């Protein structure tokens, strides 16, 4: 069974530090959410720009969720999960990208 001291430091930061992480996460995700809603609500962005801006904000926010709420980071001990998530991202990108490419292309030729 495990020795306590072989835990990587990043997992053993103590309650206060971990609470600060959650609070940071809450602030960051709230700010990103409000930014996205604000930009669209104010009509400041639209069309292709909106898609790019929203996509960027969404990716940053998803990363923030993983980082602050799900505690996934680049530490060595976390690589199993990180690899899994990155591989999933690759597969998801292939599936979504391919489907969108195929269906939009097909639509123009029907």
């Amino acid at each position, binding site marked *: 069974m495990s020795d306590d001291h072989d835990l990587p430091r990043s997992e053993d930061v103590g309650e206060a530090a971990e609470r600060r992480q959650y609070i940071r996460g809450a602030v960051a995700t709230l700010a990103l959410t409000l930014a996205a809603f604000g930009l669209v609500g104010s009509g400041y962005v639209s069309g292709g720009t909106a898609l790019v801006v929203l996509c960027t904000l969404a990716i940053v926010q998803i990363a923030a969720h993983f980082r602050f709420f799900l505690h996934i980071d680049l530490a060595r001990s976390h690589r*199993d999960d990180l690899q899994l998530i990155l*591989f*999933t991202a*690759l*597969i998801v990108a*292939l*599936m979504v990208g*391919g*489907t969108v*490419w*195929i*269906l939009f*292309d*097909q*639509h*123009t*030729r*029907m």
Partner: protein
Amino acid sequence: MIGLFLGTLRWDDVTFVEFWRTPDLNNAIAAAAAGLLVLGVVATLILLTVRGWWRPLWRDWLTSLDHKKIGIMYVALALVMFARAVAEANVMRAHQATAALDAGLVAPDHFAELFSTHGTIMIFLVAMPLLTGIMNFVMPLQIGARDVSFPLLNAISLMLTAAAAGLVMVSLVLGHFSTGGWSGYPPYTGADISPGEGPDYWIWALTLSSIGSTLTGMNFAVTLYKRRVQGMHLFRMPLFCWTVLCTSILMIFAMAPLTLATLMLWLDRHAGFHFFTVGSGGDMMNFANLFWLFGHPEVYILILPAFGVWSEVFSTFSGKRLFGYLSLVYATMAIAVLSFTVWLHHFFTMGQSANVNAAFGIATMLIGVPTGVKVYDWLLTMMFGRVRLRVPMLFANYFLVTFLLGGVTGVLLANPTVDYGVHNSLFLVAHFHNMLIPGTLFAMLAAIHLWFPKAFGFRLHEGWGRAVFWLMAPGFLLAFMPLYAMGMMGGMRRTAYFSDPLFRPWLWAAEAGAVLILAGFAALVVQIVVSVRRRDALAVPAGDPWDGRSLEWLGPAPAFEFNFAGEPKVEDVDAFTALKAQGEAYRRQETYEDIEMPRNSAVPVVIGALAGLAAFAMVWQAWATAALAFAGVWAVVIGRSFVRDTERTIPAAEVEAAHRAWLADVAAATPVHRRDELTPENRGLAEEPL
């Protein structure tokens, strides 16, 4: 009120009643098939009762969470389904061969039902359970684990697969299966054109089996990640385990699009949604897109474990280390990732731009590189070896040659230019059978021959095994080479009758091949019976009948319930070979420890039964029954989470006794030279290497 519980199911839906009302040849064949099923079930029930096998069946098998028994049950299920699907292939070919002379054997709709069930069964209920069974049995043993990570879930996967099989079987007796092929494209399978229960049988059978596969994939991937014994790093895993890992990853991701596509189809059919109805903003080609987003990785789910088996076979029966281990590992990974980038090649002719087709065509052809590498690695594995052509090796070498042909036709089909000419034709049918019969099916037959002794303690009879090979090998050529020819002559798949008399000789040849394959299957059954009868002469209690190289051969045959008495030492890819060379394979242990194993559970059986009932009720639109059964599934899941006492302990003394009994068997056995491995002298102990 009764409608809520019985839905649209009526007496007229019973196949026998249909025959009673309209007694023609077509209905007679349907009724005969249904009758065979009913007789088979009744005979089994009687046998179980007369022999008093109910209790052992329940206690030792159905409720067992042992990965080895679950694996064996998967294989048994697959063989039963294989019998039906190969019989269907025979009916189809016989029908086609006779169809132009008169009406043929079956009505067009019945013919369509046959090719739909044949495809669905062969993919989801033969190939998948076969390889899942083999992976289940072998993989934990090869990595030195006691079981998979989630044994209960493993059994649930099995029971969901069995429920899917049950559903397809029931469609023989009650109502009709889909006529839309195994890929079930709308709008043909939509409510307008196929209003009956057929497509729903297809939808729910696929849903059950794909949920089972997703869970299996997760289970195996975690097992391989977390349950490897000390010293077994990833790059010391036997190649079979690598293919299991890649297959598992494909299962995890590929089943989602299928589940979604079938769910959408169901919503279109029964809830008025418009996913695939063009007029209201749907896009039926998105079904093709989603289906093949699953379907192409699925193809590699079917073939990768076969590659793993071939790697083990070539190395074991050449008495030699696998050539190019790293190449094979990277080739496997490359195939797994590439398999997610090629799905469009199933619908090159949909009308999309040429650059889309070209991109997916090139991605498809790229798979040829790692596959070609594998073929040459296997060839070089035999080089500098001591090759012995036992049954698995016969299949393996036959595979190498026929797989080349399949590879060439695969590269041809990867070219949109060529595909435009042979898409939907029998050329395509020949191509994928060329991959799946010498590839998947023969690999699984080889695997059965290779690992059977480990499962049951005795070898399979070699002579009857050769009979299986010598029936199936020419059977395959005879059945499918004519299809290549017919495909290039403009013969299309799923055609109930060919009016062109030119096709007639080819059709008869194909039918002869189908008969040979069926005969080969019969020989397999005979082989098993003969082997059981002569099990004393074929017994290999010391556990290593083939001079094996990986950890599954450490320990007795049949394997310990707990797989290993202690933790095996791993210092090489060929871990067991290394142990034998160091003289540590058959050593007494200093100490023995208690072993925790999962307790038997009825939960998987109950979940499988309820899920099957829910699916059956959905097929017949019996909403109340479906809702109750579905709620029942979740009630059982939640209820089970309150059970704490799920483990039992095998005391150290019992482990020690078992281990010593095996060592005594080893001591009693005479080491045999490979030349004599087929004689009764082979008690499962290999001669010391020179």
